[in-house]
C-alpha cells in the first residue's frame, strides 16, 4: 500500500523547473531512495512535500489525503517529519530541549494551563520528558541531554537531528543526506540505524543520498532524478546497470566506456 504519492508535481523558480511533473509512489514500510546529480531537484522535492514550498502544479497525497497548501506545521501533525542536508538543530538549546521541541505537536496545554500548572500540564510535561529521554537512549546519547546541541560532534548531531524528527512520531520520515561527511564506520552505523527505524518503529523512510554504498545497501526501491524529471526507477540492482542513470551521473559516453 502506498503512503505517499505525488501526481504531476511541478515546482518552478522563475524560468528554472526544479521539479518537473513528477509522479512518485512511496510504499508503506519501505526505504525509498531518491538519487540524482547535484541540482536534480531532490531537496526541492522534500521542501514541496513538507510544505516549505507550494508546488505550482500537481498534487501530493499522504495517507490518501491531499496535503498540498498546508503549512509545514500542519503537515508535521499529519505525520511527516524531516531532517536537513546541512544539520539544522537549534544550536543553543540543549539536546533534551531539541527533542522536546520535536514533541511539541503532541502537547496541548495552553497559556492558562501552563501558568496555573494544571494537572494536565504536569502530566503532559512528565510524559514528554520520559519520551525525550527514551529517544536520547535510542540514539545512544543518554546522559548527554543537558549539553548544548552545537557542542556535539558531527555524528551525534546527525543522530540528534533524527531523534528530533522522530519525536513528532512520524509515519513518514524524510532524511536528506544523513551520511554526508561521515567516515565509513559512522556511515555503516547510520545505515544500521536507518534499517532499525524501519524494522523496529515501522516508519517509512524516503532517503536522499549520494553515497552509492548506502543507497545500494539499504534501499528497497530507488528513484533517479535529473533536471527535476524522473529518469529511472527500480530495484538497486536494476538501477546499478541502467545506462541512462550512468550517463546522468558521469556524462554522455561514459556508459559505453563502462560496458
Amino acid at each position: 500500500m502506498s503512503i505517499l504519492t505525488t501526481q504531476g508535481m511541478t515546482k518552478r523558480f522563475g524560468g528554472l523547473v526544479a521539479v518537473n511533473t513528477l509522479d512518485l509512489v512511496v510504499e508503506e514500510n519501505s526505504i525509498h531512495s531518491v538519487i540524482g546529480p547535484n541540482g536534480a531537484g531532490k531537496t526541492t522535492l522534500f521542501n514541496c512535500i513538507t510544505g516549505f514550498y507550494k508546488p505550482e502544479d500537481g498534487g501530493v497525497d499522504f495517507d490518501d489525503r491531499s496535503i498540498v497548501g498546508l503549512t509545514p506545521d500542519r503537515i508535521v501533525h499529519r505525520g511527516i517529519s524531516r531532517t536537513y542536508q546541512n544539520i539544522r538543530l537549534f544550536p543553543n538549546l540543549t539536546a533534551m530541549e531539541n527533542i522536546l521541541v520535536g514533541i511539541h505537536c503532541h502537547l496541548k496545554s495552553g497559556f492558562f494551563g501552563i501558568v496555573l500548572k494544571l494537572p494536565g500540564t504536569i502530566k503532559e510535561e512528565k510524559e514528554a520528558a520520559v519520551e525525550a529521554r527514551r529517544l536520547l537512549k535510542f540514539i545512544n546519547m543518554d546522559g548527554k541531554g543537558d549539553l548544548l546541541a552545537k557542542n556535539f560532534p558531527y555524528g551525534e548531531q546527525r543522530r540528534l537531528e533524527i531523534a528530533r524528527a522522530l519525536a513528532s512520531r512520524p509515519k513518514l520520515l524524510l532524511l536528506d543526506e544523513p551520511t554526508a561527511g561521515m567516515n565509513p564506520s559512522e556511515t555503516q552505523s547510520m545505515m544500521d540505524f536507518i534499517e532499525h527505524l524501519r524494522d523496529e518503529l515501522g516508519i517509512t523512510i524516503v532517503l536522499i543520498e549520494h553515497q552509492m554504498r548506502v543507497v545500494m545497501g539499504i534501499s528497497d526501491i530507488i528513484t533517479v532524478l535529473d533536471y527535476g524529471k524522473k529518469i529511472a526507477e527500480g530495484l538497486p540492482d536494476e538501477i546499478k546497470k541502467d545506462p541512462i542513470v550512468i550517463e546522468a551521473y558521469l556524462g554522455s559516453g561514459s556508459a559505453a566506456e563502462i560496458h
Partner: protein
Amino acid sequence: MTLAQSLWREGIKTGAIGGISVLAISLVGMVESFNKRDIIADFLSMGIAFIMVFGIILPYIAAKRTTRPEKHIIFLNALTAGLVTAVFPALLVILGNIINLRSMFVNASPVLYNLLTSGVEGVGGILILLLAGILCGAFAGLLFFLPGLIRSVIIVCLTSILAVGIVQDLIRPLFSSWGIMEVVSEWLFTQNGLTIAGTIFIPIFVGAIYMFWQLKGEGIKTRYNTLESGTQKSVKMSSFFVLAIFLIFLPHILGLFLSEVLTIVGLYILLGLGLNIVVGYAGLLDLGYVAFYAIGAYIAAILTSPAIGAFTLTFWQALPFAVMGGIFAGILLGIPVLKMRGDYLAIATLGFGEIIRILVLSDFLKPWLGGAQGIAKIPNPAIFGWQLSTPQEIYYLILLGCILVVFISVRLRDSRLGRAWMAMREDEDVAQAMGINLVSTKLLAFATGAGFSALSGAIMVSKIGSVYPHSFNVFISINIVCLIIVGGIGSIPGVIVGAAALVGLPELLREFADYRMLVYGAVLVGMMLLRPEGLWPEARHKMELHGEENGSDETQTATAA
C-alpha cells in the same frame, strides 16, 4: 615581536585609548561636574577618581595584552600605557593655555586645566599630571603581578571606596534615621566625602567579607549540596522567607526618596520582563514597546479619572481593561509584522511606538485623551479602603505586580510555549517544520509582553496621578532594550539587575543624569566587549558564549566516558 613593536602595539596603543577616553570625559564636562563631590573628604574628588579609573584600567589591560613573557617588558608596557593616558590631557592643557579652545569646547575651561594639573601652574603642573599617569601605570603593573586572590581583594577594596563614596549621600540619611547608626555615620562620613577612618574601615570591612567568601564560599556551597534534599528544601524555604520579610520592610528601611526610586525600578522591571518574553525568548526585536505602556496607562487614566468624566471606575476595576487593551494592541501590532524578521521588524515596531505617541498628542483625540495636557486627577489605588498614595505604599502594589509577572515568566519559560519561542528564535523555518504554529506562537509572545507592559502603565498612572504623552517617547523603549541586554538577554534575574543598574543608578546619581545617554552607550559597548552574556545571564546563555572553554570539555569527557 620586538620590544619596539610590543611597546607600540600593547603599551602606546592601549594607553591612547585611555588618553582619548580621558579627553572625551573632560571635554564633555563630566570631570568638572563630578568634581563637586569628594570621594574622600578634601583629598580625592569624584572627577579625579574617574580619571584615575582609566589611568589604572588601561595600563592593566596593556599588561594583560603583552605577548612577550619577560616581566620587565610587561611592566614597561603598563608604565607606558599610564604615561600615554596622561599625555593626552597634558597636551590639552598645553594647547588650551596657548589658544582659546572654548569657542569649540565649552568645557575646556581654566577650571578644568586647574583640576587636571592639581592646581600647579606652568610646567610643574604638566609634570605632575605625567607623573600621576606613570604612578597609575606602575600601580596597575604591580597589580598585574600579584597573585590572583590578593589582586581581586585589592580591586574589591578600591571599588568599595569608590562605590561608597559615590552613594554616600544616600547612605548618610539612611543611617541617621536609625538612631545609634548616626554615630557610625558621623565617624565614616563628612558632609562631603569619606573621613580618613571611613577610608580605612570600609575597604577592610568589604575586603574581609570578600576574602571570607573566596576562601570559605566553596566549602559552604558543597556543604549545602551534600545536605539531604529535605533539609535543602527547608534551607531554601527559610531563605525565601527572609527575602520576603526583607522585601516587606524594605521601603520603611529606605525612606521616602529611595522608595520612590524603588517604585520606578519596579515599573521598569515589569516592562523589562514583558519585553524579555518578546526579545529574549522569542527573539523578536520590538523597539516600539513603549506603545503598550502608553496604551495601558491611557486606558487606566480614561476609566478612572473624573477629569475625563466618562467613567469613574476604581483602579482595580480599570486594571483588567487596561491589561486586556494592551494584549489586544499586542495582537493588532503582531498581525502585520508576522512575516518580518530582524531589522525590518525592529523598524516597523519603532514606527508603531511613534504612531501611538502622535495619536495621543493629536487634536483629533484631544477631547478624550487631553492632548499635550494629558489627563490629571487619576485616583490612587486602594486596597480594602486603604489608599495607596505615598511611594512607600505604592511599592507594595508594584512588588505584587513584579512577583506575579516573574511567576508567569518562569512558568512560561519552562513550558512548551517557552521552548517553542526559543526554537523560533534559533531557527524559524525549522521550528515550523517541527510542528510549531508560527502565527499563534508569535502573537502569543507579543500579547504576553504587551500585557505586562500595559500592567506597568496602569500602575504608573495611578501612582503619579496624571499622564502626559511626552512620557512615552522612544527613549523608554530603548531604555528597556538596554536594560535587558545589560542584565543578560532572556534572563529573569538579569532584568531585575539591569533595571536596578540602568534605571535605579541614574536616579540616585544626579551627576550622571546629564550624561545618561553617553554612559548608556559606553556601558553597552563595554558590556559587549567584556561581558557579552550580561550581568546576570541565564545559565544557557553563559554556556553559549563561554562554551569554548566549558562546554566542549564536557562533551569530550562525556564522549570519553
